[in-house]
């Protein structure tokens, strides 16, 4: 049965997202180095005698509690074939422009974002979040892009009309009048580029 100091330290080692040094343990619990070391040993003993799935790992100059590596075969499955990386900022921005302006050309996306969006577009195509939706009837006949059914699924939308409208968005994001003006001027600037 763990004593109060050991319980406190155990809580720290379970909840932390990076190893906790002995000094930090002492600082947070107000105990001395030796007491802390002893307590860690008691935690290890108690975890092991109870047959628990956790061990105290000594890592990078600190401690943390992790699952026993011999249970890796079960724990690994938890994360198998599953989501990991989030969309990057660049991808999200590109996706946002395409979602609201679709069908949109790459040049249009880049005009709004102000940077080359090649690789973001490629990622989105690979992830099946955007698709080619035809060609624009203008010089060079550039490809047009739109969002996919997967896009809707990804954001939990029933259909495209469920995307918040610009006015609702302004409400949500509390854009200042300045921002709105800026957006208006950007959009009009962009359009005049197309006419030329």
């Amino acid at each position, binding site marked *: 049965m763990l004593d109060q100091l050991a319980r406190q330290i155990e809580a720290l080692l379970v909840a932390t997202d990076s190893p906790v040094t002995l000094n930090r343990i002492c600082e947070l619990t107000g105990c001395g180095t030796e007491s802390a070391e002893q307590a860690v040993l008691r935690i290890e003993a108690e975890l092991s005698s109870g047959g628990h799935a956790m061990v105290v790992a000594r890592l990078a100059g600190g401690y943390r509690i992790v699952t026993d590596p011999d249970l890796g075969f079960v724990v690994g499955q938890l994360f198998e074939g599953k989501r990991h990386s989030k969309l990057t900022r660049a991808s999200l921005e590109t996706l946002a422009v395409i979602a609201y302006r679709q069908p949109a050309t790459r040049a249009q996306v880049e005009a709004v974002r102000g940077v080359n969006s090649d690789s973001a577009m490629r990622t989105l195509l690979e992830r099946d979040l955007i698709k080619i939706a035809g060609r624009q009837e203008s010089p060079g006949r550039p490809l047009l892009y739109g969002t996919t059914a997967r896009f809707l699924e990804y*954001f939990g939308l029933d259909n495209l009309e469920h995307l918040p409208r610009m006015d609702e968005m302004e409400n949500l*994001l509390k854009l200042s009048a300045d921002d709105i*003006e800026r957006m208006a001027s950007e959009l009009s600037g962009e359009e005049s580029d197309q006419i030329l």
Partner: protein
Amino acid sequence: MSADSQRACRINIEDFEGPLDLLLFLIRRDELDVTTIYVAEVADQYLEYIREAEELNLDIAGEYLVMAATLTRMKSRMLLPVERALMEETEDPMETLMRHLVLYKAFKEVASDLRENESIWRDVFTPPGERERYKEDIIETDPGQASLLDLLLALENMTEKNVPPPRHRVRKPLLSLTDCVNVLDKLLPANVSRDFADALGKNARQAVVVSFFVAVLELVKRGWLTAEQRYPFADITIKRKEERWEVNA
């Protein structure tokens, strides 16, 4: 309750989450039951409170004043026998208000239960999860990894990022619809056509043009104005239809 004791328990209007919250407070303070209050009594209490707050020059949100007006109307109706007879056929507004108070009170109680849950669960910490220990280089996407808000914030972010290099131009905010309508009201005599661009002047700022354009669209929608454009990119001619515009209608 005497005026003195009322002063004694004067409370700050900022402590309330709105007129319903204040009403509930006044009812509870006088140990009344939400379902058996008399409109005249409650109305007097509420109005006195608002008056006091006004005397102290406190900033009173519009909702409080709307409620004050509603209560005054209710009270005066109660005092007029004819109106009262008529009212019996339709629903008693006091009944509606009481139901509303009961409902709001219930939600307030739920909110305070949630507050208790929050204070317990704020002290609960979860292990960070071992995803990274087991998966390092997965590039798949499942629903729920980015929320709609993320998407919107990305849009917002772009509007911040795309600030052009500083120019000699001071950005002015857009005008409100009411402002625009008031100006148009003066600018346009009834049944006279004017060129939209002329009406604003040659050197109108972009913000002004955008503001008025939106206002014109809204007035056309309401049927107060007509707007004509003979061909794409041609000048837009606007013409007043209604004699009087009730801006705040």
